[in-house]
């Protein structure tokens, strides 16, 4: 118990007092909000669906005694990241969880409209990039904080039926690794969670009721995923869940990617730093 409170105190010191959670209305985002609230962080809940956010905010306040702010907005619209940053500019934001995502699964690249892909790019690339850019500066000034980007195993290689989604997650993964190299020495943690299939309402809705689960890789439950993600946040830059093609080699790939970032950091020093 004592350990728990000490841990909570350390967690709040690094990532408090406010967390901003994109896509918080259900699924993984809701679970992030619940676990972060349980650790004592105040939560800004962001999503299009205000009624769901209001319900969740009420529960978090009652259960954890934290403060909440609701921000109903569509994170797939142009300049949404900027709108988000201004909406929380009066708060000391210590943690940003980029969890909102647009997954348009099962459509071949040419069958999906360009408009659909552009919306996905806004949601998965522009908005988190703008928000990280806007929120990281104050974190770096304070010398503490965290950026947690929800990624996906598809970031590690191409896959039919999810071309733009996979490419956008590759952007997110590489951006996180680069930010980690830049921010970690200055006290701000960065993690890209290379997640497997997560058992969320959105996923179930996406696949339909009659999906044959036996042909899919193992799914992880949101609470388990969030617990591991928050555990891994101080490590960074990415954590690859052992699932799908990475099932037996996730640890090795995670290590190799970190080693690559470290080696590349040395090269970057030689390239960009004046002696």
């Amino acid at each position, binding site marked *: 118990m004592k350990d728990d409170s000490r841990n909570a105190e350390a967690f709040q010191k690094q990532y408090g007092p406010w967390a901003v959670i994109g896509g918080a209305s259900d699924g993984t985002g809701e679970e992030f909000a619940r676990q972060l609230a349980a650790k004592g962080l105040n939560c800004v809940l962001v999503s299009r669906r205000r009624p769901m956010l209001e319900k969740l905010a009420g529960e978090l306040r009652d259960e954890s005694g934290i403060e909440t702010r609701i921000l109903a907005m569509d994170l797939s619209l142009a300049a949404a990241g*900027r*709108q988000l940053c201004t909406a929380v*500019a009066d708060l000391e934001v210590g943690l940003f969880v980029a969890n909102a995502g647009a997954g348009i699964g099962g459509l071949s690249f040419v069958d999906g409209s360009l408009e659909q892909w552009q919306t996905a790019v806004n949601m998965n690339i522009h908005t988190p990039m703008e928000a990280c850019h806007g929120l990281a500066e104050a974190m770096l000034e304070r010398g503490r904080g965290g950026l947690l980007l929800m990624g996906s195993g598809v970031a590690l290689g191409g896959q039919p039926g999810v071309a733009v989604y996979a490419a956008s997650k590759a952007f997110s993964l590489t951006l996180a690794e680069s930010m980690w190299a830049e921010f970690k020495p200055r006290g701000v943690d960065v993690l890209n969670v290379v997640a497997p299939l997560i058992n969320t309402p959105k996923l179930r809705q996406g696949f339909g009721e009659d999906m044959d689960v036996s042909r899919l890789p193992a799914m992880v439950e949101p609470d388990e995923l969030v617990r591991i993600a928050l555990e891994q946040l101080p490590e960074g830059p990415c954590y690859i869940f052992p699932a799908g093609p990475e099932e037996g080699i996730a640890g090795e790939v995670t290590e190799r990617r970190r080693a690559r970032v470290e080696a590349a950091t040395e090269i970057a020093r030689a390239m960009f730093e004046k002696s």
Partner: protein
Amino acid sequence: MTNELPRIDKLYDLSGQVAIVTGAAEGMGREIARYLAAAGADVAVADINRPGAEQAAAEINEGGGRGRAYDLDQSKEDSVVDMVSAVRRDMGGLHILVNNAGIQDREVLENTSVALWDKLQAVNLRGPFLCVREAARVMRADGTRGRIINISSMGSLHPIFEGLVAYNATKAGINALTRNAAFELAADGITVNAVLPGATPTEGQARAPGPPVDEETIRHMMPPLGRAGTPGDIANAVLFFAAPGASHVTAQFLVVDGGHLNR
């Protein structure tokens, strides 16, 4: 059936509502902000002129209303996004947007440079478009049946005097923006209307670069009602569109020109 008469004070009561008035540091915008504050709205005075905005907000507060100054350079997307998001954050929502900010640089057609054309488009048309876009996002997300009122110009319908080709092209754009936004936002109960002022002398207009307006033109511009318009005339029309009583009015142009176009 009751014999109680309609409560006019209720039909114009904006208590608990948050309004943004752009370009409210002076002129028409300042008067519009004062009218909305007088009707009970909390008013965000948004302007590129920060000291002017502070002063206009202070005046509203001294008069017993509630005003607050915000920076706005509406030629810049970031500035518009920031302002609207900050107002929603600070004041707890957004119910009314009055797109009043604009400039009236004048030049005759053959001497109108691309630079002048682009500047007017950026400030007078792209700026209001961005304000409408951001306001619509906030109103929709909050489930607010909001009001958007754009300040156009009678010159958007009919030429009044020379030197306003580029200016009036932006104002005609405002009219199309108004009707199309009204069309898209109607399902969410958001109304979009425009007020088209006639000749209404303001500080901004007097300062605007361009050929001087000669005496003959000024005489020609005197409307049938026998006097020039005032900022209060315009503010009153804006108040009508903003008021609860106008909830069934959308996509309309209200020309406030003393009968000028009807000659």
